[in-house]
Structure formats: structure tokens, C-alpha cells
């Protein structure tokens, strides 16, 4: 989460998003301002209450003047900014990014516990992905069901690192992290050991509640049955970061 200035220093700025005049505190990001004003910008790794990761690149927006692209999650609002959120170019790029995600691992919706409640699935619809043009990469990842209550299916992971961040920043356990690099990246628990053997995991389940896809789920859920509830996050985040 971006550091917030103290109340006395905060200035208010006006900017345009899609030709609409909006006001914002200057310590707010474009994505936050857009959300406050009901302007939807697609995003995947961003979660209000966790640090900005800036990796999914779906929230990229365009400046009207110089056509420069910036990530809305990590760029602050500034006076006189003119932001466009859905230019033809951005639509095309976002569509390709979602396609790349679908091709990267095994995202077969029909047999997924998150079918119907999946953020990746929704992004496909939102970004106009009705098929995937790039070839599917057919790498096999394992499913770790060793935990008493939860299961991780790496085949469905999009590496958004929400689990890593919530575990580190809110729960304070830092059980999760990323290993490897490039296409070999994977989320891990402890020294890449079965989740059920983890001594650092408190079993709080925050990671499961925040997972956007069917990668982190509760045991006993079948296709389409996995429901999540991340309402706890704004409150806990506020408590964590209170002075």
C-alpha cells in the first residue's frame, strides 16, 4: 500500500477520467479514484488493503495527450491529468494479456471449483476473450492437498501473489513466497514443502479468501462450489497500518 500523507499535507487535485471531471486526493492512485467514481478498470493483482504489486498490467491506462501508458494501480492522480481507460489499443492489449494467462497453465473452467466465481473467468468476458489465439502451454503442475483444510492447485495459479502479500502483510506469517523465475515461477510454502507440513502457516485461510482463481480452495468443494469472502481485508489492513 502506498504511504499516505498526513491529513494536513493532503491536497486535492482535479483530473479527467474518460472525459469526466473527477477530484482526488493527491496521494490516491488513478485506480482508486476510478473505483470511487464507479469507473471500472480491469485488474487482477491489485487488492485494496495490500501493497501494490503492479504485475498483471491489466490496469494500464493511457494519457490523452502523449498516449503514454501507465499502470493505474501504481500511478498517483495529479492535477490536470487526462486519463483514458478503454482506448482501442488498451482493449487489444488487455485481451492479449488475458489470453496469455489462459494459455499459461490449465484453466479449464468447466471442471474448476471456482467456475462462475472466478476473477480470471470474469476478466475473459470483460476483455472480450472468446478464444485464445496463442498455443496452450501444456506443463503439468502438482496439486498439494496436504493441508487439513485447504488445497493448492498450481495448475490454476496466475501468480498474482495476493496470497504471498496477505500472508506477509496482514497475517504476518510469510508462509508463502515465490520461487524460481520466469515461466518457472511458482508460489511455495516454506522451503517448497507440502503445505500441510508448514510450521509457519497458522491456517487462517486469508490466502484462500483472496485467491482470484481456483488455485487456493477449501477441501470438499466441487466444480463451481468455491465461495470466497474477503470483506475482512479493509478492516484488518486499517488495524495493521494504524500508527
Amino acid at each position: 500500500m502506498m504511504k499516505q500523507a498526513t491529513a494536513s499535507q493532503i491536497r486535492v487535485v482535479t483530473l479527467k477520467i474518460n472525459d469526466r471531471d473527477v477530484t482526488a486526493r493527491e496521494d490516491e492512485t488513478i485506480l482508486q479514484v476510478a473505483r470511487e467514481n464507479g469507473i471500472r478498470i480491469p485488474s487482477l493483482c491489485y487488492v485494496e488493503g495490500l501493497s501494490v504489486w503492479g504485475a498483471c498490467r491489466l490496469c494500464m491506462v493511457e494519457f490523452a495527450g502523449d498516449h503514454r501508458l501507465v499502470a493505474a494501480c501504481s500511478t498517483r492522480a495529479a492535477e490536470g491529468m487526462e486519463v483514458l481507460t478503454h482506448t482501442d489499443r488498451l482493449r487489444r492489449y488487455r485481451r492479449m494479456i488475458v489470453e496469455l494467462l489462459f494459455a499459461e497453465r490449465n484453466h479449464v473452467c468447466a471442471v474448476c471449483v471456482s467456475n462462475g466465481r472466478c476473477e480470471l473467468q470474469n476478466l475473459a468476458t470483460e476483455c472480450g476473450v472468446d478464444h485464445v489465439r496463442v498455443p496452450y502451454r501444456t506443463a503439468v503442475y502438482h496439486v498439494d492437498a496436504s493441508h487439513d483444510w485447504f488445497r493448492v492447485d498450481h495448475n490454476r495459479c496466475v501468480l498474482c501473489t495476493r496470497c504471498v502479500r496477505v500472508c506477509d502483510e496482514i497475517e504476518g506469517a510469510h508462509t508463502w513466497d515465490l520461487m524460481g523465475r520466469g515461466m518457472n515461477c511458482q508460489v511455495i510454502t516454506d522451503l517448497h514443502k507440502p503445505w500441510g507440513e508448514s510450521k509457519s502457516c497458522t491456517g487462517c485461510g486469508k490466502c484462500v479468501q483472496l485467491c482470484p482463481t481456483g488455485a487456493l480452495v477449501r477441501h470438499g468443494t466441487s466444480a463451481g462450489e468455491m465461495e470466497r469472502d474477503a470483506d475482512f481485508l479493509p478492516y484488518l489492513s486499517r488495524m495493521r497500518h494504524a500508527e
Partner: protein
Amino acid sequence: MSTPRRRITMATTWLDGCSGCHMSLLDIDERLVALARDVDIVYSPLVDAKQLPDSVDVGLIEGSVSTEEDLHKARLFRQHCRFLISLGDCAVCGNVPGMRNFFPLDAVLDRAYRENVQRNPQVPTEGVPRLLELVQPVHGVVDVDLFVPGCPPPADAIWHVLSELIAGRTPDPLQVTRFGK
């Protein structure tokens, strides 16, 4: 209906799929009657005609391309259909049949025909088409003009797509269906 229409010819086929998409097509229920007013189904597992005519207006393909026969059929449909539709997730993205891609073909065949068979285990070579090394969505082997995802696409979605086409408009299937729906 203000102007009389030329009757549209339509062909359907299923490749590697569960036929659920065809069942969903039949599930448009009484709208089948309306469909029959504008459309001639000239070739389909649902009708008697077993010869794909030279020129068909709309082709619907269900299922993924998993065998040599699937590949042949997909190419045939592309050749003879002016407008080709991938119907359902198997055709659009490989879906469940495509999940065998995560294993080598030999391992898949062994699993199906040797490991789980008690008597005279052998991989069949006659009377069945040979499996391709990799299962592909239809657009992996031929150009496709419209994609209708869903497992299966809901009857309403199929009706939407067909009625829009009949009306001469290009439908937007993502308004009515999505992957896995």
C-alpha cells in the same frame, strides 16, 4: 417478418466432445420451430443426411480436434461452410478432452487400454481413428469465424447466436455466455 428470407443452410458436427452442445441446441425447445422456418439443417448427427453439401452457409462444430478423423472433418467443414462457428468450450479451447495434453500420448493410451484392462490388453488400431499427439481447439487447425464458449453454451445463448445470424447481424456471444458456463 417483413421481407421474405432466403432459407439458410446449416451443418453441424461433433468432434471430440460429449454431444452436450448439440443437446443444448435441442434445448431451445419450441424455438426450434421458428428456427426451422429460416434454416435447413443439411447435415448433422441430428438428421438423416450423411453427405456434407458442397456449399453450406453456416457450420457449427462441437468438440475439440483429437483424432485424424476430427482433423479431416474440421477441414471439410472449413472447405464447405462459408461461416464456421466453434460451439462450446471443447471446440473453443480444448476443454476436458484437451486435458490429456498434460500427458504424453503413449501414457494416455497405456492408461486407457493396458493398465486398466485385465484381459488381452492392447491399443486398438483398426476401426478407430488414430489419436493426434496434441488435442487442439478447432481454430488451432482451421480458421474459425465465431466462437461460442460455454460447457455447454446455454440454449438461450445458442438461440441468440442463431437468431442474430438469421437476422443478418454478427452476434456477440460474450453477452450471453462465457467459458465454463
